């Protein structure tokens, strides 16, 4: 975290520079806050196929659309159209290699770090898969900060690993990713993306646009195409929040009967979300639905409406156990999906495939369950803590060890 300092030529009014410094620290601190996996990027895009003809386009495209089709089925959506995206196959023959050191591969993992339960589960899942396939992990934690991750990637690359898997914390790391690739290390971006990913072998992530669009389509369907909607997004400027929101607004714009009355940020905090929602109750008494990207935010929304003695409008968000526990047995209607932390397992699989010279896709958009209030009993885990992302791919024993169950 950087501290900006200011100096003044005038010696008497020391208070103004002090206040400027204070303000800068406050804004900087809040601006660097990261939540979940965040990464910049306009359209993702793996570099393996850039500038060349798209290999095996049909099959690759079909695998991309599969995630959309399954989500539409799970949420009962009639009109969920995949956003335009070209997915191609990458020839990984140039990356195929025997272990550089001894008999086992050494895979470097530039992780977000355990700043929240998502980060914790993300790296534990990676470690577990590494154990299963018998590879050594070189680990570095960014503590949710892109600047720290720049150093991490440099350090990991200097150990000359067989492959590098990066959970990108922001576009600021692009230079280091390119440098690592230039060193001959195959790089896989994991649970996020970069604007310029031309140097990486593959980007493995749950697609932000799919989540944002699916939530919006579900709300439109719930409201019969007509009504007032509030959009509650996470953190301003953070890709995880902004891409989902942009996709949702596109869907709402296609339905003239839907009026987006306000767009606000919850900072993925139930406290902030509750204050925002308490305002919604007074300001928009006729609100018909709330599009939200976060189950944690939804906790605050539900409390605000319940304390005001008002029915909770249909909400959307990601599947966090706290929300499910809070609404079980109530008549709150919701649609949830997830940006599963366990996607790191597929990231490692993709890196291993590249090392084996097997073809991989330049963009692996992973699939994960989506569900509504009707299936709550299948997903809620009353015996587990609030912080668990459900459903979890980790075994119960490991969840208990991590203090999540």
């Amino acid at each position, binding site marked *: 975290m950087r501290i900006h300092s200011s100096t003044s030529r005038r010696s008497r009014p020391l208070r103004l520079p002090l206040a400027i410094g204070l*303000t800068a620290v406050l804004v900087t601190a809040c601006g660097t806050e990261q939540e979940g996996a965040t990464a910049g990027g306009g359209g993702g895009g793996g570099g393996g196929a850039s500038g060349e003809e798209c290999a095996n386009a049909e099959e690759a495209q079909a695998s991309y659309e599969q995630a959309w089709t399954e989500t539409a089925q799970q949420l009962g959506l009639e009109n969920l159209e995949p956003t335009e995206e070209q997915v191609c196959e990458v020839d990984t023959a140039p990356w195929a290699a025997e272990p550089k050191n001894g008999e086992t591969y050494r895979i470097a993992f530039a992780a977000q770090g355990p700043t929240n339960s998502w980060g914790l589960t993300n790296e534990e899942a990676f470690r577990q898969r590494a154990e299963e396939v018998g590879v050594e992990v070189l680990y570095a934690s960014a503590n949710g900060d892109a600047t720290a991750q720049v150093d991490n990637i440099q350090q990991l690359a200097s150990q000359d690993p067989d492959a590098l898997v990066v959970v990108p914390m922001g576009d600021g790391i692009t230079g280091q990713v390119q440098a690592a690739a230039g060193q001959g290390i195959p790089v896989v971006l994991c649970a996020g993306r970069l604007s310029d990913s031309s140097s990486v072998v593959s980007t493995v992530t749950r697609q932000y646009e799919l989540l944002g669009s699916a939530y919006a389509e579900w709300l439109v369907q719930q409201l019969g195409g007509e009504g007032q909607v509030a959009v509650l997004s996470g953190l301003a400027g953070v890709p995880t929040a902004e891409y989902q929101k942009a996709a949702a607004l596109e869907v709402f714009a296609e339905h003239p009967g839907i009026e987006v009355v306000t*767009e606000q940020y919850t900072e993925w905090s139930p406290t902030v979300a509750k204050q925002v929602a308490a305002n919604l109750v007074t300001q928009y008494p006729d609100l018909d639905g709330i599009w939200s990207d976060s189950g944690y935010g939804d906790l605050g929304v539900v409390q605000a409406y319940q304390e005001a003695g008002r029915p909770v409008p249909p909400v959307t968000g990601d599947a966090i156990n706290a929300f499910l526990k809070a609404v079980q047995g109530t008549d709150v209607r919701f649609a949830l999906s997830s940006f599963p932390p366990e996607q790191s397992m597929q990231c490692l699989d993709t890196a291993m495939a590249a090392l084996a010279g097997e073809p991989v896709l330049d963009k692996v958009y992973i699939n994960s369950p989506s569900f509504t209030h009707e299936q709550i009993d299948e997903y809620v885990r009353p015996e587990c803590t*609030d912080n668990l992302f459900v459903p979890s791919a980790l075994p119960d024993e490991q969840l208990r060890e*991590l203090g999540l169950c």
Partner: protein
Amino acid sequence: MTTGAPPTEAAGPARAGASAGRDVVRRALSLLAPLAGLAVLLLVAAVTTPGFYSAGVLQLVLFQIGLIGVTAVGQTLVLLVGGIDLSIGAVIGLTTVVIAEHSRGDGERLGVAILLATAAGAGVGLLNGLLVVRRQVPAFVATFATFVLVQGVITAWTRGAPSGNIPGELSPLGIGRWLGIPVPLWAFLVVAVVAGVVLGRTGLGRRLYATGANERATALSGVRTRWIIAGCFVASGLLAVLAGLINAGYIGYVDARLSRSLDPNSVAAAVIGGIALTGGRGRIGQTVVGVTLLAVLLAWLRQLGAGAGAQLVVSGAVILLAVWLQGSGWAARSPRRIKQRDGVR
């Protein structure tokens, strides 16, 4: 003396009447700017956001005043002795984590959990105080370091995923009402009255103001200024624990965001009210006005649909404006400032 004028400024008996008169004028002036700001804000809010004066919004504003106010009183004490406390947000977060981890949602364990959280908050305050008075670390740096340290402790302890729940028994503190007024506001009023009485009516208060105005001279006159400064940091830590309990009661979950927030509101509220960043000047009454102004401002911004970025920008801008006004405007015209400028002590 309730305005923070140091004892070295004591007037002779013949001038006592005139001094008292000036004192009243000074008090009025010090409250005038924030009150005028509040009046303008209320007017602008009425024009730009119809429905701002509804019962629902009023309740939100009152709650917000309580939430910000408790920490603003602690911040005021620290500012009065020439310090600043940036670790308040971390202590708020730590409190919620301690409550959840220790009580595991069990109301019977809540008492011990609160004691542990109180000890933790006092410990952080004491660490801040010791760094400042024993090692002469600037408060800005010392409290920022403890802010980062506490964040690290929380992350290492919980690995980012605190287990346990907040007991329901705590919720009345966050969402309860008494006589139709949110409990957090009552908590703030009690804290503010106690702080106001201590500052304005006791010898301790006089020594505190003197320490903030001129620590060296006050120490030479036999006052244990180091104890007073460290005590203010401990008080701020304890009030942050109270704010943490209110927060935990309000939402009922461990909110990971709390410990990562530098909590700019406590500084903003105190400075807007007219508490000097240089120490020694300001009263709790001013903090109360500052807190009210900030709470109305935040509620208005939220009604306008402004995001977190806009709210931070406005908080920062308001701190700058208030400090600029203190440095060059209304405060400079107060009798004491004129005396200081002319070298009259």
